[in-house]
């Protein structure tokens, strides 16, 4: 069984977000880039599935749509343990375009399970995974909190409001994963980092595909007013403010 993990290259969580060129572009100067946290958890789960002796997972490939500046992040994915990395050399202009590029790759290179993080921490589109499923006409499950393989039996947990569902499905399918898919992201070992240098990182040209949306500009949120401090003995005052001023009670 082969697993494909879609990887987004995102700014580290503590990045102070700034824009340039009349607020039309993200200012990436000094930014530390990381694997999108949910994609990292997805890769971790893929590794766990491969390491479980009972499963027949024999290859984990990571794929990214973007420019060469993402290669360091892809090497990190290889260091975590992916067998190979593929970068589609295209601008990840919108989710439709990214999903379409990955689908073009999948048409030539089929995989049994495709993992995608629920969203990327930069543009929060939450679309690529399900779009890939639609482009490929595959079953897709969203809000996935666990994937288990028991020989050929695939068991997937999906989060629903206030609970969960246990689902069965067949390959090939897309799992759009969220928190719970793995407990902690795997940290690459020294050996993993050394071996990553020798693993293949294939760069493929972009396919001719449309882009349906365009980012026009960005805006920073308005500064929030100062916090109104209330004395710890004056609970009644707070309740009154919540009822009559904030009107939330």
């Amino acid at each position, binding site marked *: 069984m082969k697993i494909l993990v879609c990887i987004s290259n995102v*700014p580290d*969580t*503590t990045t102070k*977000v700034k824009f340039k060129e009349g607020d039309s572009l993200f200012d990436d100067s000094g930014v530390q880039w990381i694997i999108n*946290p949910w994609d990292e958890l997805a890769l971790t789960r893929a590794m766990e599935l491969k390491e479980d002796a009972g499963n027949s997972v024999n290859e984990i490939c990571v794929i990214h749509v973007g420019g060469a500046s993402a290669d360091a992040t892809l090497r990190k994915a290889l260091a975590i343990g992916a067998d190979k990395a593929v970068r589609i050399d295209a601008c990840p202009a919108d989710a439709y375009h990214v*999903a379409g590029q990955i689908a073009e790759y999948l048409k030539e290179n089929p995989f049994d399970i495709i993992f995608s993080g629920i969203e990327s921490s*930069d*543009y*929060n589109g*939450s*679309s690529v*995974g*399900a*779009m890939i499923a*639609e482009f490929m006409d595959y*079953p*897709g*499950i*969203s*809000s996935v909190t666990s994937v288990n393989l028991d020989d050929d039996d695939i068991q997937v947990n*999906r*989060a*629903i*409001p*206030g609970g*969960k*569902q246990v*689902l069965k*499905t*067949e390959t090939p*399918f897309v799992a*759009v994963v969220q*928190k719970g898919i793995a407990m902690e992201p795997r940290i690459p070992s020294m050996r993993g980092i050394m071996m990553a240098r020798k693993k293949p990182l294939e760069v493929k040209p972009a396919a001719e595909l449309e882009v*349906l*949306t365009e*980012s*026009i*500009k*960005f*805006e*920073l*949120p308005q500064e*929030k*007013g100062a*916090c*109104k*401090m*209330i*004395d*710890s*003995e004056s*609970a*009644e005052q*707070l*309740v*009154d403010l*919540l009822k009559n001023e*904030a009107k*939330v*009670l």
Partner: protein
Amino acid sequence: MSVIAFAKNWNGKFKNSSFELVSYTKALANQLNTNMVVLSIGEVAEEELKLLGNYGADKVLTVSDPQLNTLTSRAYADIVAKAAESVGAEVIVLSDNNSGKAIAPRVSVKLKAGLVAAVQELPVSFEPFVVKKRVFSGKAFGHVQIKSDKKVLTIAKNCFGLLEASCVVAIEEFVVDIDTSLFKVKIVEEEEQKDKVILSDADVVVSAGRGMRSPENWAPVEELAEVLGAATACSRPVSDEGWRGHEEHVGQTGKVIAPNLYIAAGISGAIQHVAGISRSKCIVAINTDPEAPIFGVADYGIVGDVMDVLPRLAEAFRNSKS
């Protein structure tokens, strides 16, 4: 040209998010000078469908096949796309919830309709069609233009509110050929908490962090939640330690919520936590440390010991009711 909204139901009932969606779509249709249609999938009683009229719906298409009572994303996406085509919809709107995230991207690909998820408000402009959404996990807003003729939007919870109206609803069964071969995903088991307020739906949330010092100290949190009719939540370290269940974890990699009121007790306010709560209408912070970052995002704050303050708040609220 019209606008269509897909209003999800849960066990035959709509939630506030469904009504908010109808309110938003009605306002959007008015701005576009066109009509709107609401689509419902699964068995929903007529009286329940008529509730959509209280938020501006005058036409509802219903697909009441019981096989479709639970979300099967491919089948639902297929129906949404067909309904959109049948009414000649230019804009298709869904809620940004678990089902919206599963369906909207599929509809986008089916109809080659540009999608923007978790939109914050009505479009900024119509020609070009530009909408505003949160980016960088809540640190900024992005203005995105949808260039395709057809457009798909999902709206962020609690971004718009409910606009009451009183419309007479014309209900029509939408006949569609459902291809059961699309049902490759089968539900084997389902677990749903029945006794507690569901966190993702809650208007009021009482959340606590490591400042509670021990899992034994949670009674004041639960008591306040009960008095307020609120859901309980927690910060990541608390769920990682196993003090509370993972489903309570609110934050960037946990649940992102948008309640009317979020009370953060003994939570320092790390960036990752704030990413999960910044769209709350009102945030109250209780912490012994006056420098805690949470006070930078809170509307009201109390510097004090949670073990004293929480019971006082519960008492004050109880008294205010009588």
